[in-house]
């Protein structure tokens, strides 16, 4: 995350780590479902980096959190990951029931920007 110039303070504003679990204190609230899906995928990669030291995302974990947070569009879930803007954030495309995928350098940049935005949100 240092590459993205996210500060420790910004990270502490966005999440807390307790009993080996990551809890998000700030959550994405975009108006569009597809954007929410992408942002949660990025945050889950951050969570994975903290707990497993790798910025990777399990597509089914994204589906699960999106269902919970109201950013799930069953018909377009897989399609959203294939959109160019989203696909380039991961080293390989995320696919339903597929393998976890690591963030690309674009993905790391997008995650850094997201964390800064969330940290700056009142």
């Amino acid at each position, binding site marked *: 995350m240092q590459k993205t110039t996210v500060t420790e303070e910004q990270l502490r504003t966005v999440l807390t780590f307790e009993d080996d*679990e990551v809890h998000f204190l700030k959550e994405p609230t975009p108006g569009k479902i597809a954007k929410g899906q992408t942002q949660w995928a990025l945050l889950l990669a951050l969570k994975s980096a903290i707990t497993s030291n790798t910025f990777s995302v*399990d597509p*089914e*974990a994204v*589906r*699960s*959190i999106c*269902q*919970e947070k109201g950013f799930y569009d*069953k018909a377009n879930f897989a399609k959203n990951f294939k959109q160019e803007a989203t696909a380039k954030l991961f080293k390989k495309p995320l696919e*339903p*029931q597929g393998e976890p995928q690591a963030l690309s350098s674009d993905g790391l940049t997008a995650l850094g920007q997201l964390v800064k935005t969330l940290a700056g949100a009142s």
Partner: protein
Amino acid sequence: MKQEILEKLAKLQADLKDLRQQVTKLAGDRVSKAAPRQLADAIATRWVEDLRSPLEHKFQIPAKTIEEISAGMKRLHIVSRPNNRKKSYLDATKQLLHKFDDRLVLPIKQAAFDDAEDPDLQSVIPGLGDDAESEYLREAIDAANAGFVRAAIVLGWCAAIDRIQRKVLALGLGTFNKASQALKAQTSGKFKRWNKEFSVSTMSELQTVFDTDLIVVMEGMELIDGNQAARLEVCFQYRNHSAHPGEAPIGKPHLVAFFSDIAQIILRNPKLDLASS
């Protein structure tokens, strides 16, 4: 939701057993028949569409269990493609059915609340919404219905205090001041140590009176009795435990008790009815 999830889990378990049976009966070591393949795919799909999210996020099933079951479901999804080996199906179903009840059913059964018991405040306290003359109460009801228990209690307390303040204003601030003076003047009984006296002349000044003092003076004004005052202090404790971080539990049972009490003691109390002032 609890009952609904238990039923879905029972169906999932039954279907996994059915799948195992269908595959076992097949001749040869490959699965080419459509029925077991479709069933395997349907089970895996049901897991990701209907079960994983509530189990993971609402019932807080341990992450390790969710990962194990999800991995098994992914495997089932993959083996459902044509002509995979019977052994792959049987391994996947064996892994998924292993301690199924202990891993998935038991934690749900032990979960504190069922949606049937879930405090839809409108059904627990019929007509509560009718009292929603204040924005605080409307927001409290919305928060409760969305599952935000602590927020609902804090807002519910705001609604209760708002009603009390407006009633005091309607009765006259002089009445309130006199009641506080009379309590201070008591040399025996419950209020003999009460040494506060108020001289408020505006709503703004009334709003600076501590909630606990407001409860005492309300009792002095005979708007509530001693037991009701004591119960309101418990409600105030719930409010404080909701607003201030700490270890004291605040859950749905507290929410129901809290709203039941403030509805009966304040919002529905004829003595606190604004129309009767």
